[in-house]
């Protein structure tokens, strides 16, 4: 699954998020979108997911324009984890995970044993095993993020777009969740992140949004430096070389 953009320009409320962006997101690569709060990371992500028309340019999913694709077809190829979990107050963990099967089921089809097994496996995989009948609204913030991930896993899509997957998670859970994401072999990941060190540790590529439509993209090793990040976050950033690679911290 390859996602590409050609001359992509996205704007929101008259402000440019990116201008003339050419991206080539190869199958199996892992991308982080970085930038300050309010720069338009979420807007860009939902545009890439085909849910929002770009101002200009094309988004191609395996060579086909994403906006011309039927919604269900799109749902079988890519999945989106939204930033806020707005669970139905009544739905159970199992029911939320099963919703991931929606793009694969015609309206007259009931969920098969296979669908049920996939949902169960996904719930186990994110560490929520045994909570199937719990109401999703009663889970903690971290558990709800993991439930959203279970629904994505059950959706069985090769391309995952994730908006702040690590928000509401403590340090251990951030690592556990990203380990899990990266461990699913072959899936392509595009995620917005606040924590640049997580991006450096888990991603192969970054897309930096500087505001005012300026953006640049490339492999992590080439793109990230204290100087670039200082400009990105409009705050001095220092780098320190450790045994686990370069770490960045606010100066």
């Amino acid at each position, binding site marked *: 699954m390859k996602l590409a953009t050609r001359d992509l320009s996205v704007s929101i409320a008259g402000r440019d998020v990116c201008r003339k962006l050419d991206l080539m997101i190869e199958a199996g690569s892992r991308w982080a979108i970085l930038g300050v709060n309010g720069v338009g990371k979420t807007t860009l992500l939902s545009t890439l997911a085909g*849910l929002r028309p770009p101002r200009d340019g094309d988004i191609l999913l395996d060579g086909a324009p994403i906006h011309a694709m039927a919604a269900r*077809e799109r749902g079988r190829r890519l999945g989106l984890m939204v930033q806020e979990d707005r669970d*139905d*107050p009544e*739905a159970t963990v199992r029911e939320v995970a099963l919703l991931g099967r929606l793009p694969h089921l015609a309206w007259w089809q009931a969920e098969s044993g296979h669908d049920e097994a996939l949902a169960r496996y996904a719930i186990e995989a994110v560490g929520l095993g045994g909570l199937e009948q719990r109401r999703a609204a009663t889970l903690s913030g971290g558990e709800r993020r993991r439930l959203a991930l279970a629904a994505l896993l059950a959706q069985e899509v090769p391309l995952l777009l994730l908006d702040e997957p690590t928000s509401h998670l403590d340090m251990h859970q951030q690592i556990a969740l990203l380990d899990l994401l990266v461990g699913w072999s072959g899936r392509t990941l595009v995620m917005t992140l606040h924590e640049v060190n997580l991006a450096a540790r888990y991603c192969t590529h970054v897309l930096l949004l500087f505001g005012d439509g300026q953006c640049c993209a490339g492999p992590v090793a080439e793109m990230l430096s204290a100087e670039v990040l200082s400009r990105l976050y409009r705050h001095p950033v220092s780098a320190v070389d450790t045994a686990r690679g370069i770490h960045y911290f606010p100066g």
Partner: protein
Amino acid sequence: MRPALFLPLLFFAAVASFVLALAAGSQGLEPAVAWQALLGDADSLEREVILGLRLPRALAAFGCGALLALAGAMLQALLRNPLADPFVLGISGGAGAMVLLAMLAGLSGLLLAGAGLAGALLSLAVLLALAWRGGLLPHRLLLAGVILSSAWGALVTLILALAPDAPLRGMVFWLMGDLSGVDPANAALPPLAAVLALLLAWPLARGFDALGQGETAARALGVAVGRLRAGALLLAAAMTTLAVLAAGSIGFVGLVTPHVLRLAGLRRHRLLLPGCVLAGGTLLLLADLAARTIAAPRQLPVGAVTAAIGAPLFLWLLARERR
């Protein structure tokens, strides 16, 4: 108990309440006699009472209850608000006021229905205009619904004040929700419409489930949310109008039925929607039975019975709502 097992149970409850409604009344009949009358071997008076009076009324009651409960379940899913209901939101108020106005103007038949639908759609349009700010704001929606209801109420009061004396009592009863005036020739229309509406709404069921996770999440799962919302709102307005035309403005069936069923475990719409048709119909059938037997030989408007049950339940739900 598995949620799917509720549906056959609800079906038997519906059949039982039908038999009860046919047998009970000022002229009490044994259920067996009622059954025989249905099949055609009973004496002519009993046959006349059952086929001419009670069956049409029972059919209309069941159909209207089914339509209102189905509309309520759909509105609750679409507006992502557990307190949504055609009555609470002023949708049936709009249909009622416009029908009354059309009656006064001497219209009848399809024109009357058209006026009702226009009133229901107008209410919906005003609600969405007031409560939509890049997404539905639940508190604005309920507030707008309350205000809309009272505005339609004021218009109705005005119409009643200006209406000639002769039809006044009938109008008032109809407004409160009344099934005594059901035309036997049209009595099968509400239940048939309810079945048709269910057939139209059921393919949307998983879309309603997905909307529970928020609009963006639903769209990412491949649900065409815009089309779903437009189609289902239109369907809900049409169902409400039909129920209002047949039985006036009956409150709370649309609110309470989906809630009770969800509490019983029918959370997913593939089960909830057919459950609403069965349970909503049964509920209104039994409420109508109570309305015509509690103070017999006098008849109460069934809307008063449903309101007496529904209003405290609504308040309880509101109190339970924490967010």
